[in-house]
């Protein structure tokens, strides 16, 4: 997978997380996975289709998701959540929306044309994701709330 596809997502995630959570964000070492891999517990997935195709996952543990959602809600003077309720899920979904929105603008400016699906949220234990014929690049983002992995599997349309 070409790095030019992943950079916009990394930059967008960095900017949005910093702004929305009002915190320092540290980018971890990028790594590559080519087979099935475990999902941490809460994963927002956005599909891409057009000049490039594939999917982006925003992956974190349930605990991290609760913390991240609570921080977002605190910005609206709302009580923190202790379980991933509907408002918590809506918060994580919106976060994925904001990051992909920004990343897509960058990719469109680079000349790639494609559409996005609305984010879907998966939650559960012992989940795996398998991408046929596409390598997944993973960029971990370290936050005070925990680790958020951006997992990008995109290829040019054949």
């Amino acid at each position, binding site marked *: 997978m070409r790095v030019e596809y992943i950079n916009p997502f990394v930059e967008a995630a960095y900017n*949005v997380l910093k*702004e*929305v959570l009002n915190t320092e964000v540290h980018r971890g070492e990028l790594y590559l996975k080519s087979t099935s891999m475990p999902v941490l517990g809460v994963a927002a997935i956005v599909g891409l289709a057009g000049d490039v195709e594939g999917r982006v996952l925003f992956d974190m543990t349930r605990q991290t998701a609760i913390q991240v959602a609570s921080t*977002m809600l605190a910005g*609206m*003077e*709302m009580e923190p959540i202790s379980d991933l309720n*509907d*408002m918590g899920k*809506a*918060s994580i*979904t*919106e976060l994925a*929306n*904001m990051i*992909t*929105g*920004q990343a*897509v*603008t960058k990719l*469109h400016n680079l000349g790639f044309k494609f559409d*996005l699906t*609305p984010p879907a949220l998966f939650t559960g234990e012992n989940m795996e994701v398998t991408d046929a014929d596409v390598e997944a690049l993973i960029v971990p983002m370290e936050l005070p709330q925990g680790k958020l992995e951006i997992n990008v599997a995109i290829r040019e349309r054949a």
Partner: protein
Amino acid sequence: MKTKQDFPNINERTAQGLSPEGTPYRVLVVDDSMFVTKQISQILTSEGFDVVGTAANGQEGLEKYKELFPNVDLVTMDITMPTMDGVTALEKIREFDGNACVVMISALGKQDLVKKSLMAGAKNYIVKPLDRKKVLERILMSLKQ
């Protein structure tokens, strides 16, 4: 008690959500994300606006607008929504009420749809992520146009 007269406060300012007549501006929030709905409502009510209704898609938004009319001053309208998108809802609301004041809420990457909305009569637009300053500025600007 004449507290205000006895102790004039130089920091005193009126809430931004009040019209020149001193009544709150009435807002309808249309968005499919309960997070964004809550976020916009919180920003507006804290400035004295009155959020008179919310709707989770364009169809619902159009129906709510007709129900509330003429007791509604402004609509915030998400662009990407199920059932009926925000641009279609904007067009239908403007068909019903040519003076409707609608502000579009958009994720980045939807410039074409934002342009289309402005051509269709949207007063302004706000790009997510939303922050307090941006939301209030754009909404007040639209109300004063």
